[in-house]
């Protein structure tokens, strides 16, 4: 469970997040939508402290994590992150991409880590790509590897930062399917996305962020079917 209280983030003079408070419960799938530049990616990146909040608190399972005496590496093990640009390690095979962190961080045996990695690759439909290098994969395949890599650490929560925005349209579906399976298996997920169809189908809750605040939130039916704010209506009319 992630809880944020009055989360603020500024880059110099630019205030990107203006006091967000929100709780993400276990096994919940939350989609974050909003116009570009609204702060949704920054919000997500504050959850695993890739961005250090300028103010406010972030709690993971009741424990405050944006504190100087917290071992952030230990926290990040529990928070899987998937990026828009995949960020696979290009100098390693797919298999090594998946086993690096389990071996080096968790101290897993190489053989056990590899077996687990192969199982994960199987679940994302890429069992035959284990020995390949990332450069030889398509965008959709890269992103599925990136998801498997995050899952290899057995995270409690998965964070997705516009996971399909850099993909060719015909590859979006394969990635969303993997994410849908994850959701159905009870993974807690926070997803920044522009895929409204996916949000409507998979999310338990949708947050609409605008100008650094959560302007409106609700179930997909509420938010997409009956938006309250003009800004929300305006945004949805453009993207739906």
């Amino acid at each position: 469970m992630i809880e944020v209280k009055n989360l603020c983030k500024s880059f110099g003079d630019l205030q990107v997040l203006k006091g967000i408070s929100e709780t993400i419960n276990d096994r919940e799938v939350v989609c974050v939508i909003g116009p570009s530049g609204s702060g949704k990616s920054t919000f997500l990146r504050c959850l695993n402290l890739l961005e250090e909040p300028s103010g406010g608190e972030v709690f993971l399972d009741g424990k405050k994590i944006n504190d100087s005496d917290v071992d952030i590496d230990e926290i990040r093990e529990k928070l899987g992150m998937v990026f828009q640009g995949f960020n696979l390690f290009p100098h390693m095979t797919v298999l090594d991409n998946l086993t690096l962190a389990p071996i080096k961080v968790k101290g897993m045996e190489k053989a056990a880590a590899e077996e687990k990695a192969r199982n994960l690759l199987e679940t994302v439909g890429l069992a035959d790509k284990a020995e390949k290098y990332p450069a030889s994969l398509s965008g959709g395949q890269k992103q599925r590897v990136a998801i498997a890599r995050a899952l290899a650490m057995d995270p409690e929560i998965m964070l997705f930062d516009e996971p399909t925005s850099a993909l060719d349209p015909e590859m979006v579906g394969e990635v969303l399917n993997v994410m849908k399976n994850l959701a159905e298996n009870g993974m807690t997920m926070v997803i920044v996305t522009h895929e409204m169809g996916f949000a409507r189908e998979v999310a338990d809750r949708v947050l609409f962020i605008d100008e650094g605040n959560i302007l409106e939130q609700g179930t997909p039916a509420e938010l997409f079917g009956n938006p309250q704010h003009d800004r929300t209506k305006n945004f949805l009319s453009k993207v739906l």
Partner: protein
Amino acid sequence: MDQYIHGIAVAARGVPVTLIISLVAVLGGLVLGLLVALAKRSKFKILRGIATVYVDILRGTPLLVQVLILGYGVPQLVRAITGMQFNWEPLILVGFIACGVNSSAYMAEIIRSGLQAVDIGQTEAARSLGLNSRQTMRYVIVPQAFKIIVPALGNEFVTLIKETSILSMVGIVEVTRRGTLWASQSFQSFPAYIGVAVVYLIMTLTLSRLVSYMERRMAQSDRS
């Protein structure tokens, strides 16, 4: 013609010394340079300051002067302070240290640019997986940076091979010194130094070819 062939043969006898000094210096410089490059990225201001001064001094003074300070100045200083006899023994140590330290300043800049060239997303991905900053450097950033800087490292090696000729000034018998000794003994200065030049050319050209071959090999593993 015979003098020229003899000049080459004489100079060639210095090749092992020149190569071993260059190799030790390039490896030592690489390790030292990596430390300096990391110090330059440190969050501690003092460390960054020390690294900057280190690089400035070594790049801002001639290698010849550094070699003279180390080879002649330092033994005298040690004798004055400790009152004990001190000589560089074996003399080649001067070459290892002077060239290694000098090269580390250039290496530091090369490595720094290499580290900077690795996409920030790589660091973010590694940190997100729970790797600490050291592990991220070691397993993710440095291997990629290394690939980027291979050509520059190769050039530095070639430069070093040529610059070790300066060590002949403190009596280390490498390629240039072999030529000088033969020239002063036989009065065949022109053939002697032409021989020296030819031997350097063979070493540097061979190495340049080797580097571009390695570059191509490494690029291939990206695509396979």
